[in-house]
């Protein structure tokens, strides 16, 4: 037996993209990228907090925010500027950051889980499932509707019941869409998108029906604006309701990020490398649904954040979920804070629901991605 004949390495100068800091270890890479994005997020918050009915200079806003965070910048805490920034504007910004982070992280997780760069909680119907859960709870239990979305008073009973209803709706939809799109151990892109279209329209129809049947014109406007995704009037109460499920889900998903890397290549492949695929799939589906549901229950179905943010970041830092997931979280937060600032200033003094802004940006982006992937979309 002759020794192994090994073909010469192909040395053609084929271009291959290099990702940012590809030669660094994972920990420094994570620290650097997260640090840069955290600065970006802070910048976005300063910009967003400075825009509004009264424009406040960015420097004053930054000082006020830092003072509020505990770094003594010698700001007069009784001044109107400080109060506008920290009492009037900050709660909404924190909700925007939390929701944006959750949607982007859930989107990145679903893209890995479905092995599909076009998966997004909105597109595949998970957000619509969460919305339906919320509307069902609001319309069936009048007392919940009074305290959720409509008044700025204490949340009372709605505190955990509304997010719980959203979670049930999201999880059921996520499982249905997964089952519908699975073909021979991998999700088919066309089947996934079609299942999403079908589920979105069914959920949307039921949601509309419930709202029409309970026609209460006072609440209709608030519910409709929430449905397309709005951060209007969301204060600390809402932030505190959603923060724990979102942060805990993020941490747990991070523990599964290496499994996600393997699952992306194929489920049998992941199993051959020691991943308990059925269990991992269920856990990740549940956690990403929980994140989506938490975000949707406070801010409605804000679309495309989970699609755009992980996509852009993957182009820069590569597909390793151990970096991609935390980075998407911070990037998503910055993205939604900026989108919200835009929504508040485009037709000022009127407010535009932020979901409309993300749809106007994200829709064309999604069409572009479809166009670029057109060869891989085969229906049969």
């Amino acid at each position, binding site marked *: 037996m002759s020794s*192994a*004949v*090994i073909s010469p*390495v192909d040395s053609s100068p084929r271009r291959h993209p290099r990702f940012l800091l590809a030669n660094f270890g994972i920990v420094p890479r994570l620290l650097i990228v997260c640090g840069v994005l955290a600065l970006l997020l802070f910048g976005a918050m300063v910009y967003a907090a400075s825009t509004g009915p009264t424009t406040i200079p960015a420097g004053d806003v930054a000082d006020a925010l830092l003072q509020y965070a505990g770094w003594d910048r010698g700001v007069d805490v009784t001044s109107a500027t400080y109060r506008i920034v920290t009492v009037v504007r900050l709660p909404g910004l924190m909700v925007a950051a939390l929701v944006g982070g959750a949607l982007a992280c859930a989107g990145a997780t679903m893209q890995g889980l479905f092995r599909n760069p076009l998966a997004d909680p909105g597109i595949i119907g998970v957000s619509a499932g969460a919305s339906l859960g919320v509307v069902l709870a609001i319309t069936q239990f009048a007392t919940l509707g009074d305290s959720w979305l409509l008044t700025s008073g204490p949340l009372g009973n709605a505190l955990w019941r509304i997010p719980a209803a959203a979670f049930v709706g999201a999880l059921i939809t996520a499982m249905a869409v997964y089952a519908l799109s699975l073909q021979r151990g991998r999700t088919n892109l066309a089947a996934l998108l079609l299942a999403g279209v079908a589920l979105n329209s069914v959920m949307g129809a039921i949601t509309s029906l419930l709202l029409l049947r309970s026609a209460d014109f006072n609440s209709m406007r608030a519910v409709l604006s929430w449905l397309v995704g709005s951060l209007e009037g969301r204060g600390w109460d809402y932030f505190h309701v959603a923060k724990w499920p979102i942060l805990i889900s993020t941490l747990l998903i991070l*523990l599964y990020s*290496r499994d996600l890397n*393997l699952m992306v*290549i194929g489920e049998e492949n992941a199993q*051959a490398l020691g991943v308990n695929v059925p269990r991992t799939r269920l856990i990740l589906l549940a956690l990403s649904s929980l994140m989506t549901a938490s975000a949707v229950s406070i801010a409605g179905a804000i679309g495309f954040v989970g699609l755009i943010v992980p996509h852009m970041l993957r182009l820069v830092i590569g597909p390793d979920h151990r970096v991609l997931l935390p980075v998407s979280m911070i990037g998503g937060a910055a993205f939604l804070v900026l989108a919200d600032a835009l929504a508040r200033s485009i037709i000022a003094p009127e407010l535009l629901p932020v979901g409309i802004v993300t749809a106007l940006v994200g829709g064309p982006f999604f069409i572009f991605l479809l166009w670029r992937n057109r060869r*891989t979309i085969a229906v049969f």
Partner: protein
Amino acid sequence: MTATHTTSLLQAEHIHYVHDGNVILREVTFAVAAGELVGLIGPNGAGKSTLIKIISGLWSGAKGQIILLDKLLQRYSTRQIAQIIAQVPQITALDFPFSVQQIVMMGRNPYLSRFELETQRDRQIVQRAMQRTNTLDLAERLIGTLSGGERQRVLIARALTQEPRLLLLDEPTANLDIQHQIGILGLVRNLVQHEGLGAVAAVHDLELAARFCDRLVLMREGEILANGSPAAVLTPENIQRAYDVASRAYTDPITGYLRIAVLDD
């Protein structure tokens, strides 16, 4: 009762597998020892790939018993199996741009807990596996940009980083040019000879199977027709039964390889 080989890595006994009412495997019994390359041959649909999926624990639901090292396969966790058996799968589409280095490092997954990052030792194992498969030059390339032969070598490197006892290869030479077919099988042959690995490979080409494998298992319609040395298995009678063609087998006077000439009707 089958004789138990002390060196046996994996022993499959009376494997019977039915899928959608079709019998895919019928009473299959065979064993693999350390330091042995076993070739699975037979026409399409003979059950070669299914057998590989079942002995690797990837598919469950087969009757019969599979003994891996010293205990039943189903007593192992997915993770434990991945520390003993490594597979070289067919990867078709890759939409996510992982580098070759990252793909090979994935072979360390069975040894890393959720709370761990790869250590220097893992990186050394990856480095060594890439040396042995001559893939170091590809480390920075994206997996999606590789040719079929390069990709196959990368997947073998990944299998080696699992530090397995048993290597399973499903049609490792499918869609490869002849020089890459020889390269891949020669590489596996070398690993088996020098590292004491056991290997099972489903191989389409009978002459290549005869040339590189220690032992051949000839299958047809889910059954084993013959099991033994290449010369003993690739007889005109067996080939007639498996493929329904007349043939002559002879030793090539120049190379010394077994050759099979399929005759016209």
